[in-house]
């Protein structure tokens, strides 16, 4: 396998030795650019007590290009579609090489804490969210119970 850039090795080491609370990231043994990630739903959010699985892939151009992150666990969220793709600026236009795997995952966790239905990816969910927020939150809670372990 092609040699891994020093930066990725360092980030991986730190993720293991000094993990972010509520977030785990394990590199795949065959492909060290592929991570299996779990994120705990933030307290006081509809995703509380849920553990969400994600996959994270570092493209060849990382860190000049953003990592690819996707939810594997079903989630009811206006900025995450049914395929698990995430609408988050730092993963797209606002990526900066000063960001890291850990900061990206923290941003994803923050997105769970503050859904933004005004910039939706899952249009149906966003509409529900705007029309009746309480109901949408209840549904998100229900899905969390059902799918997020």
């Amino acid at each position, binding site marked *: 396998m092609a040699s891994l850039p020093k930066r990725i090795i360092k980030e991986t080491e730190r993720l293991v030795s000094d993990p972010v609370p509520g977030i785990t990231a394990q590199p795949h043994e065959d492909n060290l650019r592929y991570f299996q990630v779990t994120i705990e739903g933030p307290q006081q959010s509809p995703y509380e007590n849920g553990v969400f699985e994600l996959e994270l892939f570092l493209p060849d*151009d990382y860190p*000049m*290009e953003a990592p690819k992150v996707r939810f594997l666990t079903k989630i009811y969220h206006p900025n995450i579609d049914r395929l698990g793709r995430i609408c*988050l*600026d*730092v993963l797209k*236009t*606002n990526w*900066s*090489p*000063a*960001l890291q795997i*850990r*900061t*990206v995952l*923290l*941003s994803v966790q*923050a*997105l769970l804490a503050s859904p933004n239905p005004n910039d939706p990816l899952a249009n149906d969910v966003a509409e529900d969210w705007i029309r009746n927020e309480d109901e949408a939150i209840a549904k998100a809670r229900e899905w969390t119970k059902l799918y997020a372990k």
Partner: protein
Amino acid sequence: MYVPVMTSCGHNYCYECISNWLVSNNANELTCPQCRSPLKEQPALNVALQNLLNYVLDSYGIGSSQNDSTRAESVSKYRDDSYLDRLFKNVFNNTAMAVVDDDDGVARCSNCHWEVEGDICPHCSARMRNRAVEEEEFPSDEYSEDEIERIQYGANRGLGVQVEQGTEEQSESDFESDNSNLESQRGAFDNASGHRQHGRSRRHLDGSQHESEDLMNSEGAMESEDPEDSDLDSFIVNEEEEDEIDGPQEEPERVELDGSDHDSDFYEHHDIDGFVSGDSLENDSDEGHKKRKRRIQVVLDSDEDD
């Protein structure tokens, strides 16, 4: 890092790394990876940091023979690029700044002076390093919090809550309409309780530009330290929270970028108002002094920016 370069916003990067980022950064403007402020100028070699790094590497024996050769390579690459005028993979040579002409408000390409709309110059096809459109649209949602605070601080003292609401609306709406909005708010207030209002306007006269120049070397200069500090504070906090999704990170820079013109514009309007209605000095107490200083300091800021 053997060849550290520093951006205009004060962040240091390895020459090769920042070059790679600038080339691959396909957003509209070139930005600093750390603080996202636009890179309008080419980063410069940070000689002091390079000396320090060399000192550390040499004295702690970190430089193995392999490291030494990569160091020599990096240094010579920078030297060659610099000599051949192709620094940063020509990113800065191939791009231009959109400069807005103050007289007619038209953005022009800094390369060929052609009128620019959008990100690419229609004449010399250079990519713009900054967004000229932003100057026109600037206040809508980008109106920085410091600006609002400053204006509120000034307006609050004389006008009370009513205008505070006005200024808050300001952040939402367009600047031109803001001024009129604020003026009408002020007008309404004038009718309601003219007395206090007059005092305030009068103070305004006193704190006009002529006096500010006299005061520049005395207390005015000291006062002007304050806003810088607060800028810095917010800046540092933002950096620590770099995992938070962008937002406020961009703001400190904006203050310096856009602050001057619109500030003085804003106060000009007030001055005009002052001429119309100003007569009584009765409320010109300690409070008045403070406010005057504030104003002077704002004017000072704009002078410096020019």
